[in-house]
């Protein structure tokens, strides 16, 4: 569970991002990281997952009161999560089996 924030900071720093600028780090993770090759992203993820324990980085004015606070989230923009991938797959199972069977018979004739 605990990947300390300084893990993200250090990784971004390796890619030339100013470690004292949290906004630049967030931006790098949001915008620049997706442009890296897949294997490099995987490597970074593994590093974050296995980062040793450490004190979380402190950014002082990280939560800047002067910044405009985002408004309350609109309920309409937050649809409830659809239930069960697995269950929906299982519900489809008879239909899937029938279609496979039909395909098999068709192929045989």
């Amino acid at each position, binding site marked *: 569970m*605990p990947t300390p924030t300084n893990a993200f900071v250090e990784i971004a720093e390796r890619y030339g991002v100013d470690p004292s600028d949290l906004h630049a780090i967030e931006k790098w993770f949001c915008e620049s990281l997706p442009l890296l090759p*897949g294997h490099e992203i995987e490597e970074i993820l593994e590093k974050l*997952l296995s980062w040793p324990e450490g004190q*979380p980085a402190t950014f002082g004015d990280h939560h800047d009161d002067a910044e405009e606070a985002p408004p309350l989230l609109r309920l309409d923009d937050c649809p409830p999560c659809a239930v069960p991938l*697995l*269950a929906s797959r299982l519900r489809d199972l008879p239909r899937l089996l029938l279609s496979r069977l039909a395909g098999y018979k068709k192929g045989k004739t």
Partner: protein
Amino acid sequence: MIRNMLRRFRGVRFVRQAPTRGGQPAELRVTEMTLPHVQWWNSHVQPVIDRDPERPDRGWNWLLYAPFATLADKLLSRQPAGYTVGMVAREVGGLIPCALVQVMGRFPGLDDHNKTGSFVWFLSTAPDEALRTVAGYPLTEERLPKRLGSIALDVATTHSLNRPTQGRLALYADAAGGKPLVDWYCRRGMEVLEDEKRLPLVPRRLFRPSDGRYCYYTPTGALRASRELDPLR
């Protein structure tokens, strides 16, 4: 056994309400975590958490975690998923995030390395103070949702139950939470991986070997824990 099979067939709903001190249940909604949720969390909730030296999630930055996980979801095989547990504020047509959960949907099982489970990467709940001071929708003590920790853990469990991982779920109890945090997970029915036991073949095995803080649900344990929250679904 049949009951368990039926449960898996039907799928498990996410929790839809939380108890409150006042007795009137609070309506909850579990939704996919998006950037606005995280921005709201970072400006309204995280500052309150950061002021509490006892909180293991002090200093976390969801603005870094969430977008990265979404990206990893598309590119990697770990299948991360993020959930926001929000309290529905119908009077103002809003949703107040009460908990955030980040899960790795595909991770080797701790109890059986040949099986696939899910792994809770981050889990955080809003302190009461943060919910009492929401601009435009301050909650009174009587309306504060309770059991948010159990509900957030249940979201991760439900995620795993509804997938081929069948409820197998693991997490690492942050060392900052000390023994009370491990005990809390145990009270939720999780088992603790003994400190001499080896982790599956993942980088964690090398960097963060088992130290008695890895907790996990077996599929049976997950079903048992899930049933406990059925009245809230």
